[in-house]
């Protein structure tokens, strides 16, 4: 069900996104940072699922809240002539890498455990 929803959303996004109106280059910084923030939330959600403490409300509020807050911060930075959006990107991408590391370790451990189990089973079978 959820996977179906994701697929439908992605297909709709591609169809509408290709025909989307082009927006002025000024806003590209803000869009980019909101995308990075949303991606960060997605990876955070996956990590939380693996750790078994996934909370849907936290996920949704993080997804939209982070995107909007990062846009506001970038806007403020633009007004103050400080590249705050760079700092936000560093934080978000850093967190994304952290989450990716956790995901990778989780699956690596699973894989090694599976291999070990198989090897044990094979040993027992050969003994018999």
């Amino acid at each position, binding site marked *: *069900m959820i996977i179906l929803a*994701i697929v439908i*959303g992605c297909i709709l*996004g*591609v169809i509408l*996104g290709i025909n989307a109106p*082009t927006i002025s*280059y000024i806003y590209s910084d803000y869009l980019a940072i909101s*995308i990075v923030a949303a991606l960060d939330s997605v990876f955070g959600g996956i990590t939380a699922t693996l750790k078994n403490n996934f909370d849907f409300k936290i996920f949704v509020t993080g997804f939209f809240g982070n995107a909007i807050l990062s846009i506001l911060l970038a806007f403020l930075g633009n007004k103050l002539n400080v590249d705050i959006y760079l700092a936000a990107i560093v934080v978000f991408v850093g967190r994304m890498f952290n989450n990716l590391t956790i995901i990778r370790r989780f699956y690596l451990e699973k894989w090694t455990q599976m291999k070990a189990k198989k090897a044990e089973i094979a040993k027992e079978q050969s003994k018999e």
Partner: protein
Amino acid sequence: MSKSKIAVAITIGIMSFMMIYVMLIQISIASDDDREEIEFLRETELKDLLASYKERYEETNEKIVEAKNKIDEYEKDEKSEEDTVALLEEEVKQAKMLLGYTDVVGEGVIVTMENNVIYGEEESAIVRASDLIELINELKLAGAEAISINDERIISRTDIFDVVPPLIHINGQRKASPFVIKAIGDINYLESALKIKGGFIDSYTLNNYKISIESKQEITINKYEGELTLNYINKEEVKK
């Protein structure tokens, strides 16, 4: 299937839709060549842009040469007399507009400069002829096609000089503050040429001048009121 699960699925679907949608918009922005907001570009991007503009410039130059050759052909060709007449008429019309014989309309900017007299202080700013000449030169550099000061058309033979300050002679007429300078040309070029950091408006507002700029889609510039006569130039063309 419970209601909450459906809600979760719909929310996630909407979220993925939004993300992909925004991503595609961003990609289309990033790959868009028609970028005009130069202020927001990085140095390397500016260099790229400059290079592409140089290429375009060269291309356009070639086209100009081609067009000139065509005009030469028309002028030589006796068969297409009607074309030649139309072409010549068009040329005469344009030449008159450029000379200032006709009122012209177009997009452009209006700059207003005013004396800022502060009694009892030495720092009062009075607009001088040299200031106006500087402004006109800036406008011409930015590609202005027609300029007027207080409705006096600036042409090739315009004189601008100080009489008794604060009066200024323009085209033989005495003009006083406020000076309204109208210029027809590309709004972007004209505005940015004047508004650039350390540019004309910056330096003059620093020196206490009252100066304002306003861009309009339609500006009317009056024709030159005087008469242009040739008394000393031989009317025959100089043969090379």
